[in-house]
């Protein structure tokens, strides 16, 4: 079991955003987290990745307790993520962005840089290579020299995925990877995500577009008002009356 989420709760003052949620994510799985707006899906991702601490509950990743770890430590342990509003290093090149994805695997310090040690040069080359690989994987290698903020929306989303992939993580959290993207592009992204799964990445996916989720996910967790109301295969979940009620019939449309 790669990720164990146990009784995770997050309170913001009086508001309970995530309420006693538990589920498991096995290695190699694609798990989708769905729910109406405001259900707490992105908050859940923020808790898992360590963006802010949970109020109570526990998170175990690869059998280690990551509940109170800071975000960068969790990232180094092998959890990568994309953000709901595409988060990039907008003023750097696409290649620089991808290089930052791999950055955590390089140990070079300031002194390595100043003295041009063999380690510095080797790691720089390694990072470049990993970055190009990731850009290739995401299908945006031709854009490598462009400034990240200047490429089209859809390419930016691919870049966010490339950054996550460059980190060579074990678990990737994708937060609404196809928000604001055309249905044609959605199909391409779905193929990309399937490719990621085939490559061995475990994926957790927050998404609204049911077409993407139903065709992709191995299992689904449904959140509503911060609580888990259903969990199961796409078939089971789409037939669940509680789920249907929560969505009021929107479940079968994309």
């Amino acid at each position, binding site marked *: 079991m790669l990720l164990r989420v146990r009784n995770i709760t997050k309170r913001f003052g009086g508001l309970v955003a995530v309420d006693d949620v538990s589920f498991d994510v096995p290695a190699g799985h694609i798990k989708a987290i769905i729910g109406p707006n405001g259900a707490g899906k992105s908050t859940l991702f923020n808790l898992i990745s360590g963006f802010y601490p949970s109020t109570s509950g526990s998170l175990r990743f690869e059998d280690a307790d990551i509940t109170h770890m800071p975000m960068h430590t969790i990232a180094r342990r092998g959890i*990568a993520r994309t953000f709901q509003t595409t988060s*990039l*290093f907008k003023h*750097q090149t696409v290649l*620089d962005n991808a290089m930052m994805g791999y*950055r955590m695997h390089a140990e070079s310090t*300031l002194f390595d840089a100043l003295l041009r040690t063999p380690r510095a040069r080797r790691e*720089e080359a390694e*990072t470049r290579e990993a970055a190009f690989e990731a850009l290739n994987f995401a299908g945006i290698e031709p854009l490598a020299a462009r400034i990240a903020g200047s490429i089209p929306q859809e390419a930016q989303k691919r870049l966010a995925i490339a950054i996550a992939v460059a980190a060579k993580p074990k678990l990737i959290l994708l937060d609404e990877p196809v928000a604001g993207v055309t249905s044609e592009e959605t199909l391409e992204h779905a193929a990309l995500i399937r490719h990621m799964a085939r490559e061995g990445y475990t994926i957790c996916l927050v998404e609204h577009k049911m077409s993407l989720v139903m065709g992709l996910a191995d299992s689904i967790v449904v959140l509503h008002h911060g609580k888990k109301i259903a969990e199961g295969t796409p078939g089971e979940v789409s037939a669940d009356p509680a789920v249907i009620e929560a969505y009021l019939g929107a479940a079968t449309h994309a």
Partner: protein
Amino acid sequence: MRRVLWILAAAVAVALPFLVPKSFYLQIIASAYITAIAVYGLNVILGYTGLLNLGHAAFFGIGAYAVALLQTKAGWPFWPALLAGCVASVVLGALVGMVSLRTRGNYFAIFTAAVGVMIAIVFTNWQDLTGGNIGIVNIPPPPPIGSLTFDGDVPKYYLVLAALALTILICVLVRNSLIGRTFVAIADNEDLARATGVNVARVRLTAFMLSTFLAGLAGGMFAMYNGNLGPDQTGLDITFEQLLYLVIGGIGTIAGPLVGTLVLVEISQQLQGVEQYRFLIFGPMLVLLVRFFPLGIVGGFNRLTARWVRP
């Protein structure tokens, strides 16, 4: 193309003592070099890492006073004194950095301004040690290396030039390295940097320490070059002036600090008798730049030439 410009500039710099008849002019340029070293330090923390350290001049003071005091009061020769000065700046930078970097944005600027002013107050008031407002005089020049003596304008000029070249080299190496990219990434998007495994606090501290190192180096050079030193070099107004040079030259660029300093020093020179009024122009210039042209001279130049070179 850029490389050609650098080689040209280096050639002019090396040949300068033979190109200018008046040693007065050489002094101006050498002083500009010293200021530029400090501005390079400011560029590392502000230009690369996005943090405005308003106490920057205080670290300049640490390096300067270390060199001055160790030489005049403890009898140290120049080189170990300079090393000690740089170390002191880095150590103090680490201490200040560890505390100040827990604050954000505006608070960081205010906090570092306060720390800087406190240090400047110590320089001004600790009469016994620092000589108060009068400062320290008769700082001996560096001891001769072999047959090379350092008590003339020309050898001192080359010493300063060497320090500047070292500074630029450091900045180039850092900017193109993984750690330099990390500085810039943190300034660009701190949350994403964290998500890619960067220990933001630790990297920021590294940037801070590098910047104070350069400030201390500049300070040490100042003490050496001028032979005397007062607390007026360490105040908030000095940091503000260095900020001006940086913004005009081009924040975040490699040539910016040098270009900005040289250009403004040159303009101040041209103003001859009215140079004390230079801020009547520089002040609004800074506002206009920040509003309309934040790239500065070198940044704008880069943007222009990038269009020519890359389609």
